[in-house]
């Protein structure tokens, strides 16, 4: 039961993007299409789960004072792994996510979970927490990307839904990210209350 709630709280109730407002930079920066959002979300999920596992394993070894720097080193290691894997196997996605891959290191979601959850709980709960939060993050990014892609270029995951010249280019560009996220947060708030 508690494992299930560790896993499921990340989706709506404690969604890192819509409710906690963490990890805003990649959220706004890479979601010009649903695929980019999904790719970024899954990359972050991987880092989140692996970092949670390692942090919860070594939590008793690390002195309290150097806790944060040690967490950052652990996270940076996994980010480098993701970076190299993605460059090798998914070069197109790597190209379009660009700078935001190394910036997973400073994503507050990852450090936040390591500090708030993994450093206090056992390995199994930490895995579920990381997975839930990561998938919640991916869900938010994919949703945001899908809405922007649909409104902006009339496509969804690259498939044409309606002719491109009816799309509003604004939504693919920078301002669209802020505006769509604003409305999505308002909707989620409303749903959470009901």
């Amino acid at each position: 039961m508690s494992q299930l709630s560790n896993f499921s709280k990340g989706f709506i109730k404690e969604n890192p993007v819509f409710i906690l407002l963490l990890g805003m930079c990649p959220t706004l920066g890479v979601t010009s299409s649903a695929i980019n959002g999904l790719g970024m979300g899954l990359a972050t999920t991987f880092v989140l789960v692996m970092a949670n596992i390692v942090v919860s394993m070594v939590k008793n070894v690390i002195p309290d004072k150097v806790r944060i720097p040690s967490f950052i080193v652990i996270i940076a290691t996994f980010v480098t792994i993701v970076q190299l894997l993605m460059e090798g196997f998914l070069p197109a996605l790597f190209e379009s996510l660009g700078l935001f891959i190394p910036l997973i290191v400073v994503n507050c979601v990852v450090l936040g979970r390591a500090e708030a959850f993994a450093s206090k709980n056992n390995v199994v709960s930490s895995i579920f927490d990381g997975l839930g939060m990561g998938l919640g993050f991916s869900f938010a990014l994919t949703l945001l990307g899908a809405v922007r892609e649909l409104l902006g270029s009339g496509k969804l995951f690259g498939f044409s839904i309606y002719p491109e010249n009816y799309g509003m280019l604004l939504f693919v560009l920078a301002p669209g990210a802020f505006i769509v996220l604003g409305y999505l947060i308002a909707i989620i708030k409303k749903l959470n209350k009901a």
Partner: protein
Amino acid sequence: MSYLVIIIAAILANNIIFMQFLGICPFLGVSKKISTAVGMTGAVAFVMVLATIVTYLIQKSVLDPLGLGVLQTISFILVIASLVQLVEIVLKKVSPALYQALGVFLPLITTNCAILGVALLTIQYEYNLLEGVVFAFASAIGFGLAISLFAGLREHLDLVNIPKGMKGTPIALIVAGILAMAFMGFTGLV
């Protein structure tokens, strides 16, 4: 490349917040009052320039000659984290007044992606050291411009009558979107 182009591009056309989406967390977090926004800008400018210098030297004198490009992310974030600690300690001792003004914001800066982002961009754009410093400083100014504009607007937002569901973050994000639209007008400048 002329320095003027770098400065105008970093402040207006490629504004770090509205066009590159770096440093959004402090942008949303500390922009409720103009005074805190200015304090944050000061801290960011200070650390950003220092971090760019140090990471540049590390990249050119350690990572490149030894072929350790893979370690870029790890080494940069470590340097930035320890630099922030160092700055905090030094400021506390040397200039208590400045520490009073910036102190609260310094720990937040470690996880500010604008700092790491600018350090990485300086390497990516292949700037030399001086260009990198100018770029970092201009980016910080751009950050300050965006965050103070936004803070000014947000102080008024509290008093406006808007639908209940839109209060707080949603309306702030939409205002940010409209500001970003205004900044898009600068795109043709460079």
